[in-house]
């Protein structure tokens, strides 16, 4: 699949934003009110909104984007839109009370948490629902999206220095486990999709043309000598060449560095603010990971080309 920058930016950034919003909703210790609370709200809301705005750059008619709220009964993309806007509205109320009055409503907080998790889940389901792309059509796809969002949220929330521990477990350890769990899930996903190909699902040029009963089917001539929307959008091949190197880069930026930083905070007296650096590195790693998510995905239509 063609890795469109707007969509990569959307999934990574809004994932991080809603992950942070989920932490806020849980009521984890953060600046009590005023400017500190405002900064936290700005980062969480900013990331979520920036992601959503970026996703509209992918549209042919962004001015009609409001229409996407109508089909939530059947469409995951529509559900994602509805949930995102609902969650951001809840957050607007929550942030108002918090920044100006130092009140963090737990009722709104629960809604905020549930809305954020549901939004990230819906984002992942846009991809996971597609049978045409076997690697996306995997139960681990939404799990990865959720765990990466939560890991981003924990790192961001922890970096303010107010949230020091969960029970008696230090926040650096919690972050370490969160980041680690997300990448373990991703490794499992990589492992699972390596064998879950179109061929493994019984699709081949033979079934695509129905001609397999005669013999081996091979494309002789494309419909037109040039490219078309389908080949550009769904038969993208550039990314696969460097896939292994890019996986290493994403693991280094997204896993090794953030985990090392968490460890430093855990065992030394380094301030929790260092987790912000871990977050930035995770985000960079996730951009590469998400690029691969698209570039490596093979669509059924490639069987015709």
């Amino acid at each position: 699949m063609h890795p469109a920058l707007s969509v990569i930016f959307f999934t990574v950034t809004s994932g991080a934003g809603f992950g942070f919003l989920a932490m806020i909703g849980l009521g984890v210790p953060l600046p009590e009110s005023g400017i500190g609370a405002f900064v936290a709200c700005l980062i969480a809301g900013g990331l979520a909104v920036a992601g959503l705005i970026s996703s509209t750059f992918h549209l042919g008619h962004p001015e009609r984007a409001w229409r996407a709220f109508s089909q939530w009964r059947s469409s995951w993309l529509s559900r994602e839109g509805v949930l995102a806007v609902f969650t951001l509205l809840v957050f607007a109320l929550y942030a108002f009370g918090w920044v100006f009055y130092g009140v963090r409503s737990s009722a709104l907080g629960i809604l905020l948490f549930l809305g954020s998790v549901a939004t990230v889940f819906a984002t992942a389901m846009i991809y996971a629902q597609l049978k045409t792309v076997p690697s996306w059509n995997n139960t681990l796809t939404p799990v990865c999206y959720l765990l990466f969002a939560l890991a981003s949220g924990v790192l961001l929330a922890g970096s303010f220095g107010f949230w020091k521990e969960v029970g008696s477990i230090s926040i650096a350890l919690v972050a370490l486990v969160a980041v680690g769990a997300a990448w373990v899930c991703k490794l499992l996903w990589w492992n699972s999709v390596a064998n879950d190909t179109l061929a493994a699902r019984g699709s081949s040029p033979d079934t695509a043309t129905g001609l397999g009963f005669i013999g081996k089917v091979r494309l002789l001539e494309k419909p037109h000598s040039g490219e078309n929307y389908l080949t550009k959008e769904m038969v993208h091949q550039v990314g696969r060449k460097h896939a292994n190197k890019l996986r290493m880069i994403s693991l280094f930026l997204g896993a090794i560095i953030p985990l090392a930083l968490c460890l430093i905070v855990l065992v030394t007296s380094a301030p929790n603010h260092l987790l912000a650096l871990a977050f930035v590195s995770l985000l960079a790693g996730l951009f590469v990971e998400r690029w691969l998510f698209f570039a490596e995905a093979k669509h059924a239509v490639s069987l015709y080309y």
Partner: protein
Amino acid sequence: MTSLPTETTGKKLGLVIDLDTCVGCHACVVNCKEWNTGGYGAPLSDLDAYGADPVGSWLNRIHTFEVTPEDAPAQIVHFPKSCLHCDDAPCVTVCPTGASYKRGEDGIVLVDEDMCIGCGLCAWACPYGAREMDPVENVMKKCTLCVDRIYNDNLPEEDRVPACVRTCPAEARHFGDLGDPNSDVSKLVAERGGMDLMPEQGTKPVNKYLPPRPKTAAAVEPKETKTKKLDSKGFLGWLDKTLEKL
């Protein structure tokens, strides 16, 4: 509403495409574009049409495959592909706006272009590559089954079939109601063993493909051919000799 229709008439309009007779002339491709660029919805645009790198939106494309049996020489199969108007159309249910829909009355899958936001998700959901984004209008284009011809009382009756069907010189495309077991197309499908493309995708396509008929086995070596000596007697012989001399 992008849920699939719950109330249907049982009518399933669609195409039956004969892979045995298609000669790969692309006439249906051209006539499809010709009709649909002036018909339903926005024109079907092309970019750089006369340049080095032309691209454009088409509702119907012909692929050409080579099929090699184990014990015989390869054969060429031309393969027309347009929307299959699937019963369980995944392109419809993913659409966030309601622009994509399947009609209950005849099963045709259409896009309401004024509602389409051009997100492209429906094209991702279709396993067959039957949907293309128009590069100028940025709305999703797909085969309409020539809905503006088949019910059009202003056209002479013989023209009330899809443009591709009307134009095919090999009669490789047939149009009709595949929901009616007694229709001509249904009988054709039964007779010739019409098949679904990628049935494993669970889309339940309405359009069917008729497989190529078995080839007569080719002779292993070409037979010796004898050239007949010209009969040089009589009037024709005289004419032949005279003309030779000229």
